[in-house]
């Protein structure tokens, strides 16, 4: 059953539910528990970072949130609507597909469709879900590729460009439909510092101008401090979330010394020697 939306105490008006609410999520493969009892919320228009040490299950968390892996327990709510438990019939695949059409996802490897050119990759979501004609689609594709610095690469195949370019093209595809929620799995990994900075600026622009909510899996501390509004820290050892808050607060005030150490190391590394 869905929980009742919270109310503003004074006038009793219903407050909008958070864009995303992860509730008591257990992630497990067979008997191996990756993370247990993870809960957090992501507000509309927020840039939310899922961080943690290597192997803690950050990308796995993302896959649970976008519907690729069913949680062992718990649920994810989008605007108060249950993602995993809210099917009227069947196994809920259609229900989840309907919700997931509001997502744009950048996968860790880029995951471009290898048999299509970059233009075809970015165009596919538009041809499936919009009424744009061929000329309009081509113009939109050119814009999206230009935004990620890939102007002129429309007719290249993924195998013909570098790993960093593939990742940027994957971001262009994720942005194709101006999604409500953008999920980015390690977007800066494999990018040079300038491209990484440019990507951070682009994410901020998308949030500010299109109102997208952005969920990022990363451990790039420079990016975390530059753009994150809120974050959750997943711990590989205790296998649960051990901190939740703005990274700029967590760096000195997180209860867990591990989180402070994680965030401080980045600050030291970012300081010019």
């Amino acid at each position: 059953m869905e929980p009742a939306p919270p109310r503003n105490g004074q006038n009793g008006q219903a407050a909008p539910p958070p864009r995303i609410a992860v509730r008591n999520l257990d992630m497990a493969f067979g008997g191996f528990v990756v993370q247990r009892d993870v809960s957090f919320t992501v507000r509309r228009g927020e840039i939310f970072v899922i961080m943690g040490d290597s192997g803690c299950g950050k990308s796995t968390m993302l896959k649970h949130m976008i519907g690729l892996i069913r949680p062992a327990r718990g649920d994810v709510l989008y605007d108060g609507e249950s993602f995993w438990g809210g099917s009227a019939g069947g196994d809920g695949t259609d229900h989840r597909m309907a919700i997931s059409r509001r997502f744009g996802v950048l996968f860790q490897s880029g995951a471009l469709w290898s048999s299509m050119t970059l233009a075809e990759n970015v165009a596919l979501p538009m041809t499936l879900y919009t009424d744009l004609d061929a000329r309009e689609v081509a113009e939109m594709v050119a814009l999206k590729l230009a935004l990620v610095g890939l102007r002129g690469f429309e007719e290249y195949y993924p195998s013909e460009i570098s790993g960093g370019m593939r990742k940027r093209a994957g971001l262009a595809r994720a942005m194709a439909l101006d999604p409500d929620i953008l999920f980015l799995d390690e977007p800066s990994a494999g990018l040079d510092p300038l491209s990484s900075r440019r990507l951070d600026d682009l994410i901020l622009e998308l949030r500010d101008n299109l109102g997208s909510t952005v969920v990022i899996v990363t451990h790039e501390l420079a990016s975390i401090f530059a753009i994150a509004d809120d974050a959750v820290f997943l711990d590989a050892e205790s296998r649960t979330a051990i901190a939740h808050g703005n990274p700029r607060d967590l760096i000195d005030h997180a209860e867990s010394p591990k989180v402070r150490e994680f965030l401080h190391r980045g600050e030291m590394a970012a300081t010019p020697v």
Partner: protein
Amino acid sequence: MTVPVRLEWIDGRTLEFRCSGDWSVRHGMPSVAEVAAGLAGDPAPGRVTVQARELGRWDSSLVAYVAAVEELCRSRAIPFDKGDLPPGVRRLVDLALAVPERAGTRRAGGPKPLLVLVGEGALRSWSGFQDTLSFLGEATLSFLRLLAGRARFRRSDLMLTVQECGAQALGIAFIISLLVGLILAFVGAVQLRTFGAEIYVANLVTVAMTREMAAIMTAIVLAGRTGAAFAAQLGTMQANEEIDALTTLGVSPIDFLVLPRMLALMLMMPLLYLYSAFAGTLGGFLVGTGMLDLTATTYLTQTQASFSFTDFFVGWGKSVLFGALVAIAGCMRGIQSGRSAAAVGNAATSAVVTALVYIIISDAILAVLLNIVGL
């Protein structure tokens, strides 16, 4: 060469192990069993130290040994002092032991008991059977969506697959079928000649090719050529998260990837069957006219007389079925593939084996059923 390590008790409570000489991974490492025995002895030491005044050259073997000893001491809550070990050894040991082992990550090594292996095998088989049923169900639903005009895939993908499994397979289908026709005719001729019944070679080749061999040989060729390619393509897409990307876009991977491949094979197999039946008949014709001294007119007249539309439609229908089976085996193994290079290789191999098994089993079932209905 044995590396010199000596254990000595000093002041009655401290166990000191003395490292001396050169330590090299090329010359072997001492066992920590002696230290373990010393720690477990009675009385147990209150402290363990290292003395390394006579230590020569060292490498990772010394670091591994000291780390193992320190872990032993930690497990027994005995204070460990690295003594006068070189700073490099101390730092590397500290680094090796800095991150503790995560609880629950270690897997049990060694051979598994027979019952466990049997149980795991049975569970795998059951899981595989469920996956197959699930895939067949999804493929059927996808076909229904196609009929309802709701299946989404790119027409260009369908055309490309049609080209790959149709026109580009003509050469190999022709050679294989021609040779099968030649072999059938040759083997038949050797036997039939003893009865003076060479003319019936034409009957043998015509009936065998139209009813069975054209469909079977084409299916086998496509299982090896196209089924394996389907599995490798889809398996690689699985490994590269391309299928995940489709799913999160709200597109069914079965509609987008499997349906065009199944359609292409089911459309092309009947055409390849016609081509293959012709090539096999040509092979029989070459043996009949070249080896058996039959005239071309005689051979063709006998071929025409032995041709039956029943045989033709049985073979033609089989080709459609076999096309679907090859596509299902290839796509299923590809979609179910793991996310590594080895898994993609296994998927391709498994696709061919699965397709061959499906073809032979379904042909056997059809043989019995057609016999029952008198066809």
